[in-house]
C-alpha cells in the first residue's frame, strides 16, 4: 500500500472521500486535495451533492459547473474545484458522445433530463463517477491534466452503492451505451488507481459506520484506502495522570498549590478551591473522552488499513487551517513529503 519511499497510495489517481455526516468529510477532502497539490502538482477537488461545501470552505463564490482554481498548493501547485451538476453532466455527455446538444435541450424541456438524473436508477451515479473518471483520464499536452482527483463523495451509508454503479445499472440496462459507459467507469474505480478513504471521529457510532462501510466496500470489491481520524485530540495528561483522573484520585492539595502558583485566581472567581474544582471536573471529563477515543482507535486499527489522524483545531476551519491539515497529512505519508 505504500511505496518504497514510504509514501501512501503512490499509484492512486482518484481519491474518493466518504464519511458519516458531521465527521468533516468535505474538510478532509479539501485537505487531501491540498496535500496532493504540493510541490507543483495540480489536483481537482470535486463535489457531487450540490452543497457548495467547497466554495464555503475556500471562501469563494458558489462554484458553477466549471473547473476553477480555488487555492495554491503548499510550495507551489494548484487545487482546482468543480461542483458536478448531474443535469449539466448529462447534457455534456450527450454532446460529447452523441453530438446531441440540441436534442439535449429539447429533452430538458420535456423533463427527460430531470428524469434521467433523478429517477432513472444508477444514471445519476454513472454520470457523477463518470465525470470523476473522465477528469482522471484527461490529458493535456502529453501529460495528465490532473495529477490527482479528489471526490467529496456521498456519506458512508451510501458509498458502496454509489460507486458500484455497475450492479445498479446492470439491472436496468443489460446492454447499450449506458451499459458500456458504466463498464468503463467501473474499470477505473475497481482498479488500484482508485482509493476510497473513510473519515471518522473517535466516537462509537461514526467508528461503527466506518467499519460497516469498509465491510461493504470489501464485499463490493472496491479499493479501500485510509481511515482518516478527524478532530483528533492528543491526550494532555501523562498516563499516570490519566489513570488518576479517571479514578478521581488526582492529588487535590498539590494541584491547589500549583494553581495558586500559576496566579490565575482573580477577584472575579473568589477562591483557588473553585478553580481546582473546575479543573478536576474538566480533567475527569477529558480522561473519559480519551479513554473512549483510545478504545475506538483500537477498533479502527483492527481493520488493518492505514490510519491517518488530523488534529482538532479549537479555532475552527478556515483556509489557513486547511493548510495545517494538509501538512499533517503530508507528514503522515500522504501526498508529497514536507521538506524541512
Amino acid at each position, binding site marked *: 500500500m505504500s511505496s518504497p519511499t514510504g509514501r501512501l497510495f503512490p499509484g492512486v489517481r482518484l481519491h474518493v472521500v466518504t464519511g*458519516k*455526516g*458531521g*465527521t468533516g468529510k468535505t474538510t478532509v477532502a479539501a485537505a487531501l486535495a491540498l496535500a496532493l497539490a504540493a510541490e507543483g502538482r495540480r489536483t481537482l477537488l470535486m463535489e457531487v451533492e450540490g*452543497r457548495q461545501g467547497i466554495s*464555503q470552505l475556500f471562501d469563494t463564490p458558489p462554484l458553477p459547473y466549471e473547473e476553477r482554481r480555488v487555492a495554491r498548493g503548499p510550495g507551489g501547485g494548484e487545487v482546482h474545484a468543480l461542483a458536478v451538476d448531474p443535469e449539466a453532466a448529462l447534457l455534456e455527455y450527450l454532446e460529447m458522445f*452523441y453530438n*446531441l446538444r440540441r436534442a439535449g435541450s429539447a429533452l430538458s424541456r*420535456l*423533463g*427527460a433530463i*430531470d*428524469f*434521467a438524473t*433523478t*429517477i*432513472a*436508477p*444508477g*444514471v445519476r451515479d454513472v454520470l457523477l463517477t463518470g465525470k470523476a473518471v473522465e477528469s482522471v483520464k484527461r490529458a493535456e499536452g502529453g501529460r495528465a491534466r490532473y495529477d490527482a482527483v479528489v471526490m467529496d463523495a456521498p*456519506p458512508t*451509508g451510501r458509498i458502496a*452503492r454509489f460507486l458500484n454503479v455497475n450492479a*445498479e445499472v446492470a*439491472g*436496468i*440496462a*443489460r*446492454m*447499450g*451505451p*449506458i*451499459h458500456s459507459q458504466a463498464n468503463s467507469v467501473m474499470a477505473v474505480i475497481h482498479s488500484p488507481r482508485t482509493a476510497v478513504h473513510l473519515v471518522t471521529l473517535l466516537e462509537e*457510532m461514526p467508528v461503527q*459506520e466506518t467499519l460497516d462501510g469498509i465491510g461493504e466496500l470489501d464485499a463490493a470489491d472496491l479499493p479501500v484506502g485510509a481511515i482518516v481520524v478527524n478532530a483528533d485530540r492528543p491526550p*494532555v*495528561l*501523562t498516563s*499516570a*495522570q490519566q489513570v488518576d483522573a479517571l479514578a478521581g484520585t488526582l492529588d487535590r492539595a*498539590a*494541584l491547589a498549590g*500549583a*494553581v495558586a*502558583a*500559576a*496566579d*490565575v485566581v482573580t477577584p472575579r*472567581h473568589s477562591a483557588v478551591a473553585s*478553580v481546582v*474544582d*473546575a*479543573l478536576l*471536573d*474538566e480533567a475527569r*471529563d477529558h480522561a*473519559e473522552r480519551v479513554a*473512549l477515543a483510545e478504545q475506538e482507535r483500537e477498533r479502527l486499527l483492527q481493520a488493518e488499513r492505514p490510519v491517518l489522524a488530523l488534529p482538532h483545531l*479549537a479555532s*475552527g476551519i478556515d483556509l489557513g487551517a486547511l493548510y495545517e491539515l494538509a501538512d499533517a497529512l503530508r507528514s503522515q505519508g500522504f501526498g508529497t513529503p514536507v521538506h524541512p
Partner: protein
Amino acid sequence: MTPSLWQGAHRLDVDALLDDPTTRIIVCCGSGGVGKTTTAAAVGVRAAERGRRAVVLTIDPARRLAQSLGLSQLDNTPAAIPGIDTSAGGSLDAMMLDMKRTFDEVVEAHAEPDRAAAILANPFYQALSTSFAGTQEYMAMEKLGQLDRQSQASGSWDLIVVDTPPSRSALDFLDAPKRLGSFLDGRLIRILAAPARAGGRAYVRVLTASLGVFSNVLTKIIGAQVLRDLQTFVASFDTLFGGFRERAERTYALLAAPGTAFLVVAAPEPDALREASYFVERLEQDRMPMAGLVLNRVAPVRLPELSAELAGAGAERLRDGDPGPDSAEALAASLLELHADRMRQATRQHHLADRFVAANPQVPVVAVPALAQDVHDLDGLRLVGAALAERRHAAGTPVPGRR
C-alpha cells in the same frame, strides 16, 4: 467570558411542549450528523415518562435509534420499548421506517393484485422504491400519516415523535415529497403513459408521433429494453399517481396543522447552523409551527470566568519552571491549557450561536451540552432529555449527570 447573545434568547421550554396535551406531533429536523435521532429518542423517552403515550418514528438506515434504545432491531410497525418508567401513565413505542416495505404496502393497498404484482416486479419500481432521492422522505411522510390516522382511530398514542431522514439538507424532508409528486405528474410521464391510456383521440396520435421521435432518441441513449421497462412501469403505475400526490399533500397539511411542532436540531458548527437558518426561514414561509432550536453538543464549560488568556498565561508561568511531567505543576499547566482550549472552542460556538440568534431573534433556543460518553441506552437518553428540559442555559452550568 461575557454573556452571549444567544443566552439571552427565548428559552425553549421542552417540558411545557411535552406536557401540553394539544401537542400531537413533534418533528425533529436538521442536517446530517447533528444528533436528530438521539434527540427524537430522548424526547420520546421524556414524554413517555411524563405521562404521554408516545411513539417514535425513526428513518435512519444506520439503525442508530435501535442502538440508542438498546434494541437490536426495529420493525416497520411500532413495538413497545421496555424499561420505560410508566408510573406517570405513559408509554413508549418505537419503529423504524422500512422504506421499500412502506412503498410496497401503498401499492398493494391501491392496485388490483395482478397489477400490484406487475408493479412490484418492474425494475423501475424497484429502483424508485429503494434508491430514488426523495422516496425516503416521501415514505416518512406516508408513515407519519398512517401513524396519525391509527392513533386517531385507536387512541393508542397521543404523541408522535418523528425523526427525519439523514439528508444533506434539512429542507429535503419538506421538498422531496413534492418533487416526487411533480415528477409523477410531469410531462414526460404523461407522454410515456399516453399510449397506455384510452387511444383513438387526436391528441394521442400527435403525442404518439412525437413519442416516436422521442423514443428514438431515448433508445439511442438508454437502449430499447430500458425504454420498454420504463413504459410498462409508467403504464401500470399511472392510476396510482394521483393518489400519491393527494396523500403527500394531506400529510404536508398535517405538518402545518396546530398540534404539530418542529424542533430544529443543529450542532454548533457553521454548516449545521446555516442549514438550521434555512429551515427556520422555510417553516416561517410555509407557516409551519416551529417550537425552537436544539443546539446540540455544546462544549460544556466550567468556570467561564477563567478566560482562555488567563489560563494560558498561568500554564506558561508554570511551564517556565520546567516541572517534571508527573509533577503537580505540570498537571496544573496541562489542565489550564485544557481549560483554555475549551474556552476557545466555547467562544467560537457561542459566536456561531449568536449569529443564528441575531438573524432569528424570535426562535426559542435550548443548548444541550456534549456528553463525555456516547448515548446508547435509556439512561443516556434520560440525561439528554433532562438537558433539553434544563431551565437555565447549559453553558457555564454543570453538565447533567456529573457528580
